[in-house]
C-alpha cells in the first residue's frame, strides 16, 4: 500500500502540474495566483494582479496642492488615512510646514483608528477563518457568534475613532493640509474613551484567541524595512530603517530604492537597488520597533508566544493583534491628554519645490513625492504603496512554501497557498502599479 502510494506520487511528480486560483478571496482588490510545477520542483510562482490601473499619478498632475488628501484617499477604501497622512507629510515637507503637537496627536489618533479597523477586519474577517477551517467569518459566526461579534464591535471602535476625528470611516473628510478642518470637542473625545476601555479588553482577548491557532512552521528571511522614531512606535513620523543597517530620511528614498517594470512578470516591483527584495508591514514594524511598544503590548506579545522579532509570516495575524492592542492604548493615551485647540490647522502657503513623505499604512510603509510650481499646482508625483513593495517577497515566500508541500492534495495545497498570501493582507486596490497578468500554462 505504502509502496503503491509512493509510486503513484512519483508518477504524478513526473508530470507538470499547475495550481491556479483564478480569483483570490478575502483580500482587498482583485488578484489571483499561479504556481507552475515541473517534475518535483516549483518552476514559477506568480501573484497575478488584475486590478485595472487607475492612473492616479497621471491625473494628479495639474491638480492643486490642497487636493491629494481627498483624491489619494480613493486609492484604497481600507486604508484611506494612510494616503491622507503620507500626502500631508509630503506636501507639508515641500512648503516647510510644521504642525502643532495637538495636531500631531490628532493625526496619530486618526491613524490608530485606521490601524484598529483594518487590522481587526483582517484578523477576524479575512484571515482567522483559514486557521480554523472556515470559508468565511460568516461561516465562523454560525459556530462562534460571540467571537465574531467581538471582532465586529472592536472593528467598529476603530471606525468610531475615524468618524469622530475624520468625519467618516471610509474616505474621511476632515483632513486638510496643516491639520484638520475642525477639531473634536473634549466631551466627544471622553465619550469615545468609554468605548476604548471596552476595546482594550477585547484587544487582549483577541491576542489570547489568536495565540491558540496552529501556525505552520515556516520562516522567511527578507530585509525588514519600517519607519522608526526615537520616542514612539512609529506610525506617521520617523526615519526609515532596516535590519540590514538602512537608516534614511524621506528625501533619500528614491536614491536607495527603485521601482522596476519587469517584463517577465508584467508588474512593477520595488527593490533596494543594491540588494533586491525587502519587506514592509506589521512584521517588519514589530521586529524593528519592539522596544518602542508599550509595556502592556510587549507583555502580551511575549506571552502569546512571539519573540522580539517575528520571521514566520503565518504569525503576522498575531503581530496585527498586538498592534491593535497598542493602537487602542495609544488612542486612550491621546484622548486622556487632549485639550481642544483654538485652531485646528496651521496655515499653509504653497511654493515651488519638491516634498517627500511617508507613513506606516496598516500594510506597511507608504511613500509619496510631489513636485509643485510656485502656485502649488502639481507638476509630478510618485506614490509607492506597501503591497507593490512586498510583491516580490510574497512570490519568493510562496515558492519556498509550495516546494515543501508538493505532496499535499491539490485542494489542500491551494487553500494553504491562499492562506499564505493572506498572511500579507495584500491590498491590491492600493497597488495602482499592478497590471493584468496574462497566464501562461505549461
Amino acid at each position, binding site marked *: 500500500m505504502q509502496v503503491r502510494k509512493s509510486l503513484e506520487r512519483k508518477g504524478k511528480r513526473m508530470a507538470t502540474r499547475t495550481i491556479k486560483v483564478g480569483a483570490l478571496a*478575502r483580500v482587498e*482588490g482583485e488578484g489571483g495566483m499561479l504556481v507552475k510545477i515541473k517534475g518535483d520542483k516549483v518552476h514559477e510562482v506568480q501573484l497575478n494582479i488584475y486590478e485595472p*490601473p487607475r*492612473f492616479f499619478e*497621471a491625473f494628479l498632475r495639474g491638480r492643486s496642492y490642497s487636493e491629494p488628501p*481627498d483624491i489619494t484617499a480613493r486609492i484604497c477604501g481600507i486604508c484611506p488615512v494612510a494616503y491622507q497622512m503620507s500626502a500631508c507629510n509630503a506636501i507639508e515637507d515641500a512648503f516647510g510646514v510644521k504642525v502643532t503637537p495637538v495636531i500631531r496627536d490628532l493625526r496619530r489618533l486618526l491613524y490608530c483608528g485606521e490601524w484598529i479597523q483594518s487590522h481587526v477586519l483582517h484578523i477576524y474577517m479575512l484571515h482567522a477563518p483559514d486557521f480554523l477551517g472556515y470559508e*468565511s467569518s460568516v461561516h465562523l459566526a454560525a459556530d462562534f457568534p460571540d467571537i*465574531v*461579534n467581538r471582532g465586529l464591535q472592536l472593528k467598529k471602535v476603530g471606525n468610531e475613532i475615524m468618524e469622530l476625528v475624520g468625519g467618516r470611516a471610509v474616505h474621511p473628510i476632515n483632513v486638510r493640509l496643516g491639520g484638520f478642518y475642525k477639531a473634536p470637542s473634549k466631551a466627544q473625545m471622553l465619550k469615545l474613551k468609554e468605548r476604548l476601555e471596552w476595546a482594550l479588553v477585547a484587544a487582549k482577548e483577541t491576542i489570547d484567541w489568536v495565540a491558540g491557532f496552529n501556525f505552520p512552521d515556516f520562516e522567511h528571511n527578507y530585509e525588514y524595512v519600517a519607519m522608526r522614531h526615537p520616542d514612539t512606535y512609529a506610525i506617521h513620523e520617523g526615519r526609515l530603517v532596516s535590519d540590514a543597517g538602512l537608516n534614511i530620511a524621506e528625501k533619500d528614498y528614491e536614491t536607495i530604492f527603485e521601482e522596476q517594470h519587469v517584463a517577465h512578470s508584467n508588474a512593477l516591483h520595488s527593490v533596494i537597488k543594491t540588494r533586491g527584495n525587502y519587506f514592509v508591514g506589521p512584521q517588519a514594524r514589530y521586529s524593528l520597533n519592539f522596544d518602542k511598544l508599550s509595556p502592556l503590548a510587549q507583555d502580551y506579545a511575549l506571552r502569546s508566544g512571539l519573540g522580539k522579532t517575528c520571521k514566520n509570516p503565518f504569525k503576522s495575524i498575531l503581530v496585527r493583534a498586538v498592534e491593535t492592542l497598542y493602537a487602542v492604548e495609544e488612542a486612550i493615551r491621546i484622548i486622556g491628554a487632549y485639550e481642544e485647540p483654538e485652531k485646528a490647522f496651521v496655515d499653509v502657503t504653497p511654493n515651488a519645490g519638491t516634498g517627500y513623505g511617508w507613513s506606516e499604512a496598516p500594510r506597511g510603509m507608504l511613500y509619496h513625492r510631489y513636485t509643485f510650481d510656485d502656485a502649488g499646482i502639481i507638476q509630478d508625483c510618485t506614490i509607492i504603496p506597501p503591497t507593490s513593495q512586498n510583491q516580490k517577497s510574497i512570490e519568493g515566500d510562496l515558492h519556498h512554501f509550495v516546494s515543501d508541500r508538493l505532496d499535499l492534495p491539490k485542494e489542500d495545497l491551494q487553500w494553504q497557498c491562499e492562506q499564505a498570501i493572506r498572511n500579507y493582507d495584500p491590498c491590491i486596490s492600493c497597488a495602482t502599479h499592478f497590471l493584468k497578468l496574462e497566464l501562461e500554462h505549461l
Partner: protein
Amino acid sequence: MTGFKETYGRKPKLAVWKFASCDGCQLSLLDCEDELLALTGEVEIAYFLEASRATVKGPYDVSLVEGSVTTPHDAERIKKVRKVSKTLITIGACATAGGVQALRNFADVTDFTRVVYAHPEFIKTLATSTPISEHVFVDFELRGCPINKMQLVEVINAFLNGRKPVTPSHSVCLECKKQGNVCVMVAGGKPCLGPVTQAGCGAICPAFARGCFGCFGPMELPNASSLMGWWKKHLGATDDEVIRALRTFNAGAEVFRKEGEAHGN
C-alpha cells in the same frame, strides 16, 4: 408587501462584484457591524470574494456591483454579471459615474500610461472609465464616494421586501439645514457644492466647517451653472478652480461634466 423568503421559500442569493474601484463601497457592507449577522440571516452570501472563499453558482437574486468599466475584459465581464443577476444594483461613484479614474476621459490615456509605466505596451486599458449603466441595464443606482452604509442596508432591505428604496434625490443643502449648520458658503465664504449635490452623506463636510465636494454626485435637476456663477462672482473662484471642483469622483456624471466644459477644457 410580501417578503422574498415568504414568496420563494428560500433566502435570496446575494452577489458582490468588483470592477475598477478602491473597495471602499463593498467594505461598507462589512462595516455594518451591528447589522451584518442579521443580514446574513436573511440573505445567502453567494458570491462575495472580499469576505468569503466559498462561492455559490448563479443565478443571483441581487447583485451589488462596485467599480467602473476601464478594460476590454471588464466590458465583457459586466455583461456576464448582468446575465446571472435578476436585480443589479450599482454601488458608489465608480459604478454610477465612472469614479475618479474617469479623469482619463478628459485626457489622452496613452499619455497617462506613459506617466505611470515604463513599458506602456504592457497595459491593456480603455480610453475611458464608464459607469455600469453605459454597458448594461441597471435596476437601481446607489450614489456616494463612498456609499452611506445605512443607505445600503435600506436598499437591500427594500429589495427583500419588494418595495422601492427610500433614498433622497434632493440636495445636501436640505440635509445641512435640518442639522442647523451655519451655511459654509453664504456665511463662511467657502466654495460648497452642496446646492447641486445629492443628499445621503449626512452633510458631513459643512458639519466639519468645510464646503461639500460632491461625493454623491449631482442631485435631481441641479442648477450647476447658477452655482458656479455664484462661486465666481461672490467667492472669486477662477475657471480652473471651478473645473477642478467639478472633476473629482463624479467627474463623469453628465451635469458635472457639462458644467466643467462650460468653464474651459
